[in-house]
C-alpha cells in the first residue's frame, strides 16, 4: 500500500486525534476515547512500518489489524462486564478474575504481546529487511564518497 501523498493527512489526523481524545477525556467519554486511542497508535505504526512510503500488506494483515481488533474488543468486553456487574460480585470468573478485568489480562496484555511482539518477530523483514538496510548504508556511503570527492 503506497502512502506517499497520504503522509501529511495521516499526521494531521494524528494531531486531531490527540485533541479529540483530550476533549473526550474531559467529558468522561472514555470508551470513544479508547477506540480513538487504538486508531492513534495504529496510525503511528503504519507510518513507522513504511519503507520508501510503501506499507507492507502482510504486516497490516498481521500483526497490525488483528492487534487493533483485539484491543478494541478487549475494551468493549471489559466495559460490558463492568456494567453488568456494577456493585455486585460477578456470578462467574474467567481464569479466576473478575470477567471485566479478565479481558485486560487475556486480550490487552497477552493478546497485545501475541499480536504485536510476535508479529513483529515473524514479519520483521516487512519492517526492515537486510537488503533495505544494506541498500540504505550503501547509499549513505556513496553520498559520503561524493562529498569527499567534491572537497
Amino acid at each position: 500500500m503506497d502512502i506517499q501523498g497520504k503522509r501529511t493527512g495521516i499526521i494531521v489526523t494524528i494531531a486531531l486525534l490527540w485533541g479529540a481524545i483530550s476533549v473526550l477525556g474531559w467529558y468522561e467519554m472514555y470508551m470513544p476515547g479508547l477506540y480513538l486511542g487504538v486508531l492513534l497508535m495504529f496510525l503511528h505504526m503504519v507510518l513507522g512500518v513504511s519503507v520508501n512510503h510503501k506499507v507492507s500488506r502482510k504486516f497490516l494483515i498481521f500483526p497490525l489489524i488483528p492487534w487493533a481488533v483485539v484491543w478494541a474488543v478487549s475494551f468493549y468486553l471489559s466495559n460490558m462486564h463492568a456494567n453488568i456487574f456494577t456493585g455486585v460480585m460477578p456470578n462467574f470468573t474467567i481464569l479466576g478474575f473478575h470477567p471485566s478485568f479478565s479481558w485486560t489480562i487475556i486480550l490487552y496484555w497477552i493478546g497485545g504481546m501475541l499480536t504485536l511482539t510476535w508479529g513483529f518477530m515473524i514479519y520483521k523483514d516487512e519492517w526492515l529487511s537486510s537488503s533495505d538496510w544494506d541498500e540504505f548504508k550503501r547509499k549513505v556511503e556513496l553520498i559520503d564518497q561524493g562529498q569527499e570527492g567534491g572537497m
Partner: protein
Amino acid sequence: MTTAVKVMIIGFSFAMLLVSLLIGLWAKRKVKTAKEYFGGTGLFGPVAVGLSSTAAVASAFALVGVPGLLYSTGNAMNFWMLSSAAFAMAYIILGKKIRAMSEIGEVASLGDISDLRFNNNRLIKGLMSVIIFLGCIAYLAAQIKAGSELFNNLLGWSPIVTGFIIFGVLTVYTAISGEVGGLLTQAFQGLVMVVAGIIIIVSFFVITGGFGNVLEVVSKAGTITAGDVSKSFGPDFMNAWGILPKSVAMAWVIIPILGTVGQPQVLTRMYALKDPKDMPKLGLYAGLAHMVVGFFALVVAYGALYLVGIGEIDPLVVADNAIFAYADYLGLYAQLFVYAAVLAAAMSSASMFLTLSGNIIARDLPSAFGKEFKSEEKQMKVAQITIFGIGILSILFSLTSAEMVAILGTFGWGTLMSGTFPVFIIGLLWKGANSKGVTAGLLLSLVLNIASLMGMAWPGALPWYVNVIAISIFATVFISLFTKEDHMNEKLDLVMDL
C-alpha cells in the same frame, strides 16, 4: 523483623550494589570514545538492551507506587503496568529511524539526533534539553528518595547516610563508565527484578490459592478497621476500571503505551543496539521482562488486598507500603528479593536519568549555546565531573526538599513525552515537520509544564500531562503545515524514507 533478617536483607542488597559497582568498573575499559561514553552507540545485543530498557522504564514507582495505587483504587493502574506490548510498538514506530540516524552522523545523545534532523537548530535543541532535564531530575530525585527511605524504614538509618552510600556508589560508577556501564548495570538490575518477580508470583499462588479467592475476599470483605485505620473493599475494585474516574483509566492506556516511544530511556537504547535488524528480538526480550515485572506489581497488590481482607494483616496506614507488608508476611526469602528488587528498580532508573541529565548539561546544552569542546577527552572529563556534581546535588536535594520532590514527582513520563514527541516522533515520521512548528510545540510544552507545576487547573479528571502533550503536538503539526518546509539533506532524506 529480627536483627538476623535485617542483616541478611542488608547483605543481599549491598551485594547487589557491589556487583553493580564491579560491572561499572569493568565497563570503564570498554569506553574509548565520547560516542561510547555518552551513548554506548551500536555496542550491545538485544538481551542486554532489552533488560536494561525494562529496568530503566520500571522505576521504584512501578514496584512501590503502583501496588499502592492498585491497593487503594483498584485495577485501573494495571493498564499501565500491563503495557508490555509497548516496546514492540515503540520499535515498530521509530526503531529503524533512530538507529539509522547514527549511520549518517555522530549520535551519542538525543541532542545529536535533533541536530541532524533540524539542521543544528540551537533553539530546538535547547528547549528539548531543558524539558528532558526537568523530567530527568524529577525522576532522579524520586528514585533517590525511594531508595533512601527504603533503608530508613527498615533499619532506621538516616536517609542522608543511606542516600550517600547507595547513590554515592551509583554516581561513582556512572560517572566513570558513562552509558556503557549504565546500560550493563541496568541489565543486571533488570535481571534481579525479573528473578524477584518470578519468586513473588509463585508465592502469590501458594498464599492465596489463586485470583478467584482474591476476588471473593475483596468483593465480600466490606470495611476492615484496625485502630484508626480502615480499608473499604467492594466488587468494583476488581473490574477493569477500578474506582477512579474512567477517563483516568483511558489515559493510563494511551499514555504508557504510546508514551514508551517518547521516553529517553527507550529512545537512547534504540541507537545502543548493535544490529538494527535485532530490533524485533529487542521488543520480545524487553516485553517478556516487562511482563514479569508488571505481573509482579499486580500480584503484590492483590496479595496485600487478600491479606487485609482475611484479617491476616492490618489495613495499611500508607498504601505505598503494600509491597513491604506483603513481603514481610511471606518471610525471609521474599523479603530478600523484594527489598533488592525495589533497590534495583530505583538504582537502574536513577543511573539512566543521571547519565541523561549529565549528557544534557555537559554535551547538549553547551552545544545549543555554541560551545564546542576541543577534544573528546576534555568533553568526557567535563561529563564525569558534571555527572558527579549532579549526583551529589540530587542526593542532597531529594533528601532535604521533600515538598519540592513531591511536586516534581508529578513530572516524569508525561513531561518527557511532551519534550520528545515534537522532535522525534513527529519529526522523524513526517518530512513536513519544520523548525518553526517544532519550536512552537516545544515552547508551549515548556510553558505548560511549568504552569501545571505551579498549579494550573485543567478541565475534567484527565491527568494534566495529556492536555500538554496534545497541545504541543497540535501546535507542531499545524504550524509546520502552514509554514515553509526546511531544507533536508540527502542522507536525512534516506533515513526518513527507510
